């Protein structure tokens, strides 16, 4: 099976450790992912903001670059959802592309769903002796149906104590441009999420999306909280 790594623009530029952790975890499971050096961005941010022609440019590019892979794995629920859920909507006017979009969507996986549903692994040989709480990122949760997979994987991490998060499925308030266009609402949603994180007693908050974590971490550091944000991939790569 030829597996390609879909890094995502955000992780490539701001959170490279997440990509490295993803590669580490895949290698431990016997997968050597192709890195596809020409990749850049799936176009989600432009799409969500209503700039569809601009987004199409990037979507077409993404489809071309990942054509050859049997499976495309990404440490991002929202980027996987973009390809699987929304590419066909974005590209519906071009009949040649809609078929390719469907095909690409069927082969694109968020990391935890790839590990559990495709590789049938829940134990990836990780150790992380800390109290961790899990936030269910919206696109992964509702777009892809990623609900149990991260929890299954985290439950098999040695010495990790999983703390439940109140309002686990409530949106953190990032939402792409929403975070700045409606900054008050975004901040208020973040405030609720942070209160739940603090109440959980966890040392770390984790999720499948670096975008959520960037937003949550930004808030935690502003409030000088001792809680740190860490991507699921980074926890799974720890030993």
């Amino acid at each position, binding site marked *: 099976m030829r597996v390609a790594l879909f890094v995502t*623009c955000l*992780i*490539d*530029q*701001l*959170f*490279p450790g997440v*990509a*490295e952790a993803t590669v580490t975890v895949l290698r431990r499971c016997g997968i050597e992912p192709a*890195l596809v*050096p*020409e990749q*850049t*961005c799936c*176009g989600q*941010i*432009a*799409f*969500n*903001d*209503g*700039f*569809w022609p*601009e987004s199409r*440019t*990037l979507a077409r*590019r993404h489809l071309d670059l990942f054509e050859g892979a049997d499976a495309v794995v990404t440490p991002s629920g929202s980027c996987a959802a973009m390809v699987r859920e*929304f590419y066909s*909507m974005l590209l519906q006017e071009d009949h040649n592309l809609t078929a390719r979009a469907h095909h690409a969507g069927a082969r694109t996986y968020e990391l935890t769903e790839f590990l559990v549903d495709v590789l049938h692994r829940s134990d990836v040989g990780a150790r992380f002796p800390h109290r961790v709480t899990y936030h269910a990122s*919206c*696109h992964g949760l*509702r*777009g892809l149906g990623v609900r149990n997979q991260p929890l299954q994987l985290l439950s098999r991490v040695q010495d990790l104590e999983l703390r439940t998060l109140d309002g686990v499925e*409530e*949106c953190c*308030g*990032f*939402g*792409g*441009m*929403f*975070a*700045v*266009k*409606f*900054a*008050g*609402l*975004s*901040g*208020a*949603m*973040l*405030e609720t999420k942070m209160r739940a994180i603090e109440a959980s007693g966890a040392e770390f908050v984790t999720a499948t999306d670096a975008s959520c974590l960037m*937003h949550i*971490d*930004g*808030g935690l*550091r*502003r409030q000088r909280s001792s809680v740190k944000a860490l991507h699921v991939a980074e926890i799974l790569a720890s030993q």
Partner: protein
Amino acid sequence: MVVTTTYDRRPTTVFPMTKRIDFEQNSEKALQNAPLQATLRTAMVRFRALRISAVEEIPDWQALRQHAHDTKAHALAHLDRYLEQLERQVTGAGGVVHWARDADEARNLITRLAGSSGRRVVKSKSMTTEEIELNDALEHAGCEVTETDLGEYLVQLAGERPAHIIAPVVHKSKEAIAALLSEKLGVPRYDDAQELTRVAREALRRKFLEADVGISGVNFAVAETGTIVVVENEGNARLATTLPRMHIAVMGIEKVIPRLADLDVFLTLLPRSATGQRMSSYVSFLTGPRRAGEADGPQELHLVLLDNGRTAIHADSSMRESLACIRCGACLNVCPVFERTAGHAYGSEYSGPIGAVLTPLFEGLDVAGDLPFASSLCGACGEVCPVKIELPRLLLELRSRVVRQRGAPVAERLFVWGWVNAMKSARRLAIAGKVARVVQRFMSAVHLPLPYPFSRWSASRELPTPPAKAFRERTL
């Protein structure tokens, strides 16, 4: 303390609304209102829990949702046929059907009908009558209008508009309601919800008995039998539609469903989605006015079929599914944005996620184009909609229309242009990334904020610390 908010009225077709609904400003105001935030949070958390309990009892809930979705899609695909059948059946049962092209026509004909029967009107809750601003027209024509749904009654007393599709005073705390009743009715301030209800009921009972006309909405209209279905919890709709000599039922044309048997699924989905009830307290099946020999019922039954922009939505193939809405309010209750703003911020009687779709469609993108953007696209709404309206998709589609039709602020256009151009090749991205890191280091060294609107990030969050090297430089 009484929190009073109002918003601009819906337009008639002659005078279009020109003032843009500034959701950002409205939401900021709501966020500053701490008592409102507390009241809403409590109410929404409770609604959510109730809905989940009720849904968990139905093992094939997902199948029911799909079935309802398909039934609505079918009814909408053959809307003309079913509306004509409905008209035949209602007429055959002794009722009169009126077709109202727009709010003006509806107001005029209802006012005429009400005036012909007498001046005292009782109303049960109807968002459609809110939509056409019926009460204003009736009062202007000299009618005395009393809202009999407790929440709507309170809204009427306060001189406001409803703040939620099914819970009109969700934005008011019990204390605020007690103060309102005390102020307007001259009664002591009660702490107990039961007492408050009793006070309102006593005030309303006389109105029911004296009314000449009862006006209601319609939850479902069955084409097969000409049956108007009204779902409620207080019994006020039952009284309003049967005691007065004239009953006027107002419905959006999209409310028609093909057969009586279809109600099985809808009446399972609606109360559980709306209030977490297995069944609402009263479900009324009204087929025509009182027949010869019957003891109950109005002498006259009038059904007003309202278009008011629905045909245009129907013709819009991407948007047609928004007409499947059965007005349960579930999407409002799970929405993290609605939870923090309530309905008035949306500038319309239709608020929350469905409002963010319908209001731009009804009012136009110039007026309501902000609303589809006022969402983090979390998808909670689409997940709970009992008729599987894909609300997040509709919001996204509307966003693309707004950008095409209205454009976007310069800063945003510049950002997207810059972003897409940087992403067109790996080499460009690598260079852009390096430049951005240099610029960021400089800006943070001299404590410069990000340009607007990105500066707003920093109102509540620290910026991420960029790494020394991007992944592509470390590995690719």
